[in-house]
């Protein structure tokens, strides 16, 4: 089977279960392709020989009842993996080797998968283009010198470039959905509390969620089923009835009410995005859904709110990097000098910028004006969704205000970079699930995504809508393997 890396996760699982292919054969193919794909720069740490050993071990005594039997999987380098370096894309964690495993990755290994390697990402998941990583830019398989989006840019490129059949990312303001949209793949940000945050390098704890990224909706549903578990080690993990998302997946969405929020029609939105959205509305209608105009009046306040809440939480979370307990340490004349130099040399520019914003909005005299204000507006944003969901079952929007841009294009203008997340950020602030599915191309042939936002804990419903629409859209990614050496 020479086309192994082209197969979807579901196909690979089926072929392993039918003994048409072994875990070792599959793992070899992905390792070989990864070796030839160094130019994409998706891997921070390769784990190939250990993956092959584990695959061989799996084949000796295969447990074919597992959900991911012998499947090689690379994951974002924000998940702690026991005895395997975990960097969060930062110099400050360059030599950090966790002594424990994140719950989400443990769930994946428990279902029989083997770790291929750790994938590049923006430093501490702060970025929308993967350009803030200490380990360099990631190339988008769609075109040379095109950003893959971020922060889960390495994850998105690895799936789109067929270097891993499936992966996991994390999403604090759009970090799964935006790169999924930029690379023509599917990405799900689950409801806050659905996937455990234990062992994930923290960015903004009230917003961070792990989620699956895949070639198609069905694979995405299967991985969500594996990673979403209640976990007492995460105090915000929520104990609710989780579905067997892939088994319960249906394309019958007749009569589902889908809301179209008028506030997402932002000034200066390219016509291509407007057209894509209209196309999406038509597809949803074709599937039997009922389209209803809705209003989310505080949408334009979401991004400013996010840029108070997320940096505030980040500045607090990142206080732990002090050069004492783990990670990089710079030499200093005394303890304080060591702290200050360690953090100045260990963190990149964007991370320092956000630590500064966060420290400022939490500092004496500014807390009420910024942080408290943002928490109040966050409430208004959540109330908007609550009101909307009295009338509709889900909401359809574009995933991003544009297609992928060139490396370097927005690097020096933080605000224009932040605007990438204008359609994804409200979902995190409200703690809701959202999925991005590839739905078309811009004039250059770059992929564009549509986002379906659901009610809290209603992942099954948005997966079903995405599944039905995916069938109608019949999206084909235009990749040429230009990077293969």
């Amino acid at each position, binding site marked *: 089977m020479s086309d192994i890396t082209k197969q979807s996760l579901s196909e690979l699982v089926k072929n392993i279960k039918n003994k048409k292919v072994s875990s070792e054969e599959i793992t070899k193919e992905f390792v070989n392709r990864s070796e030839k794909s160094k130019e994409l720069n998706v891997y921070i740490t390769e784990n190939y020989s250990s993956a092959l050993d584990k695959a061989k071990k799996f084949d000796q005594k295969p447990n074919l009842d597992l959900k991911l039997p012998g499947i090689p999987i690379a994951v974002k380098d924000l998940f702690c993996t026991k005895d395997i370096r975990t960097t969060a894309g930062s110099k400050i964690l360059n030599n950090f080797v966790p002594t424990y495993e994140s719950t989400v990755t443990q769930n994946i290994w428990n279902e029989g998968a083997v770790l291929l390697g750790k994938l590049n990402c923006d430093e501490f998941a702060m970025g929308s283009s993967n350009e803030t990583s200490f380990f360099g830019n990631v190339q988008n398989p769609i075109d040379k010198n095109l950003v893959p989006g971020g922060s889960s840019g390495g994850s998105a490129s690895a799936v789109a470039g067929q270097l891993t059949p499936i992966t996991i990312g994390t999403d604090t303001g759009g970090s799964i959905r935006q790169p999924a949209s930029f690379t023509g793949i599917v990405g799900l940000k689950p409801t806050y509390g659905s996937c455990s945050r234990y062992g994930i390098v923290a960015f903004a704890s009230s917003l961070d969620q792990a989620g699956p990224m895949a070639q198609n909706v069905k694979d995405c549903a299967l991985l969500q089923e594996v990673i979403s578990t209640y976990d007492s080690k995460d105090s915000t993990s929520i104990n609710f009835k989780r579905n067997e998302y892939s088994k319960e997946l249906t394309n019958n969405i007749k009569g589902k009410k889908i809301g179209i929020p008028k506030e997402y029609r932002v000034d200066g939105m390219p016509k291509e995005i407007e057209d894509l959205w209209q196309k999406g509305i038509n597809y949803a209608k074709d599937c039997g859904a009922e389209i209803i105009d809705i209003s989310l009046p505080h949408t334009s306040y979401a991004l400013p*709110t996010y840029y108070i809440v997320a940096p505030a939480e980040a500045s607090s979370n990142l206080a732990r990097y002090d050069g004492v307990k783990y990670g990089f340490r710079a030499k200093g004349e005394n303890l304080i*000098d060591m702290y200050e130099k360690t953090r100045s040399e260990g*963190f990149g520019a964007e991370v320092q910028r956000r630590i500064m914003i966060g*420290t400022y909005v939490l500092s004496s005299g500014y807390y009420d004006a*910024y942080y*408290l204000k943002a928490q*109040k507006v966050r409430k208004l944003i959540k109330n908007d969704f609550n009101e909307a969901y009295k009338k509709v079952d889900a909401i359809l929007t574009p995933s991003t205000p544009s297609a992928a841009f060139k490396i370097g294009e927005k690097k020096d203008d*933080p605000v224009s970079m932040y605007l990438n997340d204008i359609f994804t950020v409200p979902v995190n*602030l409200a703690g809701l699930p959202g999925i991005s599915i590839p739905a078309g191309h811009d004039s250059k042939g770059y992929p564009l995504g549509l986002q379906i936002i659901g009610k809290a804990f209603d992942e099954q419903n948005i997966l079903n809508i995405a599944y039905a629409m995916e069938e109608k859209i019949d999206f084909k990614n235009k990749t040429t393997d230009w990077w293969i050496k």
Partner: protein
Amino acid sequence: MSIDLKTIKHISKLSRVSVDDQKAEKLANDLNSIFKFIEKLNELKTDKVEPLTSVAETSLKLRSDEVKSNNIREQIVKNSPQDNEDYFVVPKVIE
């Protein structure tokens, strides 16, 4: 409102990140453009709005106070930047 170099130096001290003058200037520019964008929130009247601190509509759960991982000192100091198997080593604090 504008963030000046003095404020940047103050925040840098609070956050324990050293910045030289050149970096401070760049940060002041960046932060000013970001805060200009954030000021939009002042359009909204929020006096009567309750702040949202958590999207999970449950109170924090209590658990019994039990030791679940003991004898892991070795694991805890394993990643320490300066080797010592018993404790973390830092530059001299007391003269």
